[in-house]
């Protein structure tokens, strides 16, 4: 299907949105996906909520708890996405923690992803070595891309290793932080983005963490292919609901 690769080969900077499935309401998933596509978003990360999201700040923690309280489960998410490819054509990824995937069964999870038309997975706590040894085959079998993270502390050697293991893009975490922090995009971040740009990796980089408006989007994408907005989008959803999506997306670019 190559939706992600095709999108990455387009000439513009990509805007990607993360939201937590089941938030604000259990059944909002499909409508949010449709609205985001309509408003010109390039790619979407659908968050599978987890009880103990270690790498997330208060906003995504809170949305995950609400989603779980609303009754969201892996099974229900796949049911909601059953006909999504009749309605939405941009690349869709599922982002979540590894334990729910493990309990669903990694192969079963990948199979379901392929059935509903998910293009890739981002599982921050599934380490590279573990993935390659046990799961890479399964991901390939179902034509799913696995997206890895790098951070300002990742060594060049490891970045190159991750680049070799990746297909699609590399998720470049903007600063040493959990999601939703507003450390800004100052000199040290710009240097880090430039440093990674200069490595001329085979995979383009998409920046995430801390992007919350058009200014930070501009700065994040100066040396990268695109950027992901998560916490800021969820904050907007809690304040304005689905009605606020269109003006939020337009305010970014």
């Amino acid at each position, binding site marked *: 299907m190559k939706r992600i690769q095709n999108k990455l080969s387009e000439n513009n900077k990509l805007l990607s949105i993360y939201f937590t499935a089941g938030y604000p309401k259990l059944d909002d998933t499909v409508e949010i996906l449709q609205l985001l596509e309509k408003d010109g978003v390039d790619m979407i990360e659908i968050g599978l909520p*987890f*009880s*103990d999201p*270690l*790498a997330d*700040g208060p906003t995504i*923690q809170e949305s995950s*708890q609400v989603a*779980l309280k609303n009754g969201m*489960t*892996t*099974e229900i998410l796949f049911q909601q996405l059953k006909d999504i490819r009749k309605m939405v054509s941009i690349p869709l990824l599922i982002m979540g*923690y*590894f*334990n*729910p*995937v*493990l*309990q*669903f069964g990694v192969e079963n999870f990948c199979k379901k992803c392929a059935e509903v038309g998910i293009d890739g997975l981002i599982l*921050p*706590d*599934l*380490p590279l070595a*573990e993935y390659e040894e046990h799961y890479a085959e399964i991901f390939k079998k179902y034509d799913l891309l696995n997206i*890895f*993270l*790098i*951070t300002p*502390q*990742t*060594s060049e050697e*490891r970045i190159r290793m991750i680049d070799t293991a990746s297909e699609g893009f590399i998720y470049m*975490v903007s600063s*040493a*932080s*959990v999601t939703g*922090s507003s450390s800004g995009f100052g000199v040290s971040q710009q240097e880090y983005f430039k440093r990674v740009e200069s490595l001329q990796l085979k995979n383009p980089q998409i920046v995430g963490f801390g992007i919350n408006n058009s200014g930070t989007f501009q700065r994040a994408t100066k040396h990268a292919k695109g950027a992901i907005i998560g916490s800021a989008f969820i904050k907007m959803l809690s304040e304005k609901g689905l009605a606020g999506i269109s003006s939020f997306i337009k305010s970014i670019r």
Partner: protein
Amino acid sequence: MINTQYSNMNYNVNEKGYYGEFGGAYIPEMLYPNVEELRQNYLKVMAEESFQKEFHQLLKDYVGRPTPLYFAKRLSEKYNTKIYLKREDLCHTGAHKVNNTIGQILMAKRLGKTRIIAETGAGQHGVATATVCALMGLECIVFMGEVDIKRQAPNVARMKMLGAKVVPATSGSKTLKDATNEAIRDWINNPVDTHYIIGSVVGPHPYPDMVARFQSVISEEIKTQLKEKEGRENPDFVVACVGGGSNAAGAFYHYLDKPEVGIIAVEAAGKGIDTGESASTSVLGKVGIIHGSKTLLMQTADGQITEPYSISAGLDYPGVGPMHANLFASGRGEFISITDDEAMEAGLKLCKLEGIIPAIESSHALAIFENRKFKKNDVVVVNLSGRGDKDLDIYVNYFKL
């Protein structure tokens, strides 16, 4: 000497960081540099002569080791077997936790870290961490669940006196699991100058192994002390309570590959295993990932971690360390669950029979004698992991004293 070699024992960690199918390092990339730095260095640093010397000197002069192995005569008479208590309650700060924090603070210094973070449940690990930070002049931040801050108030006061900052964890069940989440998030936010002193044999490799090695001084001493008292190094049974499992790991360590020594791990059944208010991970848990480790944990069918319950803050954790998951799965360890009520009764009994007020965690280990029968000549060593000062309010309210 702390052993710094990998062994070919079945029950210890292998080069990849696994105990059987359990362990590993399931961490987000943000934590990779720190955990990898530790993994590459911990055995090397522990093997240095200067490290061993400083570690053992502090254990001796500051912690007060070796702790006694005490033959509990009246308790033995009551249960018609030979019961020895390993008196970790007599360690400085009141529990075994300090064995590990001494080791880790020396490790942190050698890795050039200047800021220390920790999680705590009962507050014993928080106090032990605050203590060694004061000793070394390092900044100390302790994360503690809001519920635990209330039920272990004396330890919160102690941490503050020792100069630590206590940060309440307000998410989830507001207990140990959530405090651990917050500590991990802090580490993600402070990746360069900070060392995370984990308080049990949990977390990503190399933590479970490193903490077990620091705590292994417990069974090393038991061997020597039992030889003096009984003419043999090996007891018939070693008993310890398991929250994450660090006091148990230390008490079991040198007996893991001695099949003649029975290993008994005691978990908190809370109000009863089937009541929905329990922390009996070996019974209620399934294989999954918690705090960076593949192990047994209590979770829903959908893989959401469930909230445990125990009257004892130190045992109120939905997982166990990977070493213990493997002891359970392999059948090497016998696992027993003890309810709140059974533990409280056993705690009071030890006060009356031996004049020792145990931590409620340790009371769980003592409670097995009511149901688990031993032979008259069996030598049973119970690891008395801590003292009950922190729990006086809970005992007093429970027994309406």
